[in-house]
């Protein structure tokens, strides 16, 4: 029952709200201010401390976080896996604004690459497990390009359904291609080398070394993605997300960068799939369904559009909650459905909506801009005094 006038009033009110939000202190504002106030070396120090803490988590097994009934390091591995997936999907959905509902497909391809080249059940030549990680990224990246070339020219609405279809196709191919062994799957997937006291370090029962491997990969990927963010690539992605047509008129080759986003996202998905295959030691066609794609989307959306730390936290939470609170485990899809609906209505920008910083040397302008503001205020005072 709204007229255009009411509509306009509503969108103006919404814009005012948004402007208000950026001004009034949020619950993280104190944290943000403190963080932005630190000098670069200090920021690195804090991040280093956080990293050390994370590495220590499986050994500490803190009582507040621990998961009764489930092996804590294995839970941490699941959280890390979701965090890495969310990191990759964030590039596609959060930064470039491409709604990819079939991300599980890339994950699956990565898992099968690891399985095919290291499992004793497979007929392909065996290569060391760690070599399958870059191989998975290359293969999935290639699949991403092949899928992206025809579909990224489509309008956004079509893209969502086509990617959904792709996820389904991969799952079905896993079932019907005989070489992929459908339900039987592949066992004895390889693992990184290394022995301690005569026993191999990386087994499927001991989650801690796998968690450390995941964490290292996450840190490297985060650093690299941060480089991309603060470059013309990251700026192009956000410009495409905000207003694709205006971006193209401003000289951004939108198709090329959309394809890169898609490919990079795919490669990260494949990487996490390969790590998952190694950690769990077994791959079959039962693990790659549409519902999991939706969980991935929920993780990214919860974290906030484009914010990689938010996405990782979202992923970790999505993986963690069903373990910690056993009673929700069987209802987990229901709960995440409700969470998604609530978020989209009340806070579509996500829980941790922090702004991307897109300039590599952006901090330097703060001084310049402050100087200009002071000058402008000085001039105004002069004019008043005169």
């Amino acid at each position, binding site marked *: 029952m709204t007229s255009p006038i009411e509509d306009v009033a509503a969108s103006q009110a919404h*814009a005012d709200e*948004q*402007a208000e939000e*950026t001004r009034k202190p949020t619950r993280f504002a104190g944290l943000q201010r403190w963080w932005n106030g630190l000098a670069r070396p200090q920021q690195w120090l804090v991040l280093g401390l956080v990293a050390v803490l994370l590495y220590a988590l499986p050994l500490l097994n803190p009582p507040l976080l621990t998961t009764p009934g489930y092996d804590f390091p294995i839970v941490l591995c699941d959280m890390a896996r979701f965090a890495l997936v969310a990191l990759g999907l964030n590039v596609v959905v959060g930064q470039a604004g491409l709604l990819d509902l079939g991300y599980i497909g890339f994950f699956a391809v990565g898992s099968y690459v690891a399985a095919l080249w290291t499992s004793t059940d497979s007929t392909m030549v065996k290569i060391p497990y760690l070599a399958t990680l870059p191989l998975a990224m290359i293969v999935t990246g290639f699949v991403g390009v092949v899928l992206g070339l025809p579909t990224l020219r489509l309008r956004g609405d079509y893209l969502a359904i086509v990617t959904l279809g792709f996820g389904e196709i991969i799952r079905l191919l896993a079932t019907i291609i005989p070489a992929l062994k459908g339900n039987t799957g592949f066992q004895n997937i390889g693992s990184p080398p290394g022995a301690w006291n005569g026993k191999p370090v990386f087994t499927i029962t001991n989650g801690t070394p796998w968690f450390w491997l995941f964490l290292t990969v996450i840190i490297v990927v985060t650093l*690299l993605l941060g*480089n*991309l963010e*603060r*470059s*013309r*690539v990251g*700026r*192009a992605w*956000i*410009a495409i997300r*905000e*207003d694709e*047509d*205006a*971006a*193209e*008129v*401003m*000289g*951004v*080759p*939108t198709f090329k960068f959309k394809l*890169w986003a898609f490919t990079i996202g795919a490669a990260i998905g494949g990487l996490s799939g390969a790590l998952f295959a190694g950690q769990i030691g077994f791959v079959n066609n039962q693990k790659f369904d549409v519902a999991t794609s939706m969980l991935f989307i929920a993780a990214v959306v919860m974290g906030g559009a484009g914010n990689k730390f938010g996405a990782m936290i979202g992923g970790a939470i999505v993986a963690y909650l069903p373990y910690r609170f056993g009673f929700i485990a069987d209802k987990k899809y229901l709960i995440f459905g409700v969470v998604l609906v609530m978020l989209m209505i009340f806070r579509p920008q996500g829980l941790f909506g922090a*702004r*991307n910083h*897109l*300039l*590599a*040397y*952006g901090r*330097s*302008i*703060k*001084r*310049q*801009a402050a*100087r*200009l*503001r002071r*000058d*402008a205020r000085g*001039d*105004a005072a002069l004019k008043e005094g005169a």
Partner: protein
Amino acid sequence: MASHDNDIPGDEAPEQHERTYSTGHLSLDKSGEDASGTPADGIPTDSPEAPPDLDSEAAQIVHQDRDIAVAVGDNLVEIRDLTVQFGGLTALDAVTFDIRRGEILGLIGPNGAGKTTCFNAMTGVYKPTSGTVTLEGKPLRGMKKHAITRAGFARTFQNIRLFGEMTALENVVVGLDARHQTSVLGALVRSPRHIREEKTSIEHGMALLEFVGIADKAGELARNLPYGYQRRLEIARALATEPKLLCLDEPAAGFNPAEKEELMALIRTIRDDGYTVLLIEHDMKLVMGVCDRIVVLEFGKKIADDVPKAIRENPAVIAAYLGVEEEDADGAA
């Protein structure tokens, strides 16, 4: 090179800064400065809102430095028989005109005349049904939008289309990126070229913001900027792509008279700095005051193409805007 109050290491002096300043403007019917040094457009040059002196650092960096194959005064862009049809509707009908290097050309006409359609057809947003657009003699037919921008057309939008979630400076740097050559891999590993281009981006971006007068809000989100700032940010972003032709689509919409004066001064400074400007506007005072020549469209057709004085007295133009006089029942006109 003048010292800069930012973090760029002093030993790096990319060639782009070694510019000699040259006046490229045509000698046209413009009023000059009066004795006290105040330009005839009325803004004292020491006001913070005035566009910067053409000798200032900001203007030096912004100065048009690209090699343009055409001499000042010759045709930079030629539009020939440009036609755009949507289904049964002819929005643009065999429009033909030239844009000369160094001039400010106005494109006016009543609402619906096809002015923005012309812009869109030139910048590749619409595919023309027929006709050609040539830049420095080379046709732009069939090129993708971003290629046309890189070839030398830049534009602002009638409805502001900034990237809301980016700051003002980031918006401008997106325009600068059109000229950058860092590859994705280079950005991934922070190649020397990437580092160099990022550093000069900050400098150039701030210079552009200073040039249009909004540098004090460089770090604010574009969607939070005041309206006047947003309009000027669009101009800065367009300038960042180093265009040969700058197309402004109703840049003064929503401005009060004082702001329009400032805008006129800014447009003149932009031209004096070496750019060619194509301007769509509804405000006659602004158009007459700033344009060297004017093209008038009505119902998709060109009805006049002349200097402002002649346009003002052209009966066809008057009829298009005001209608033809009708006789009342009692014979009074």
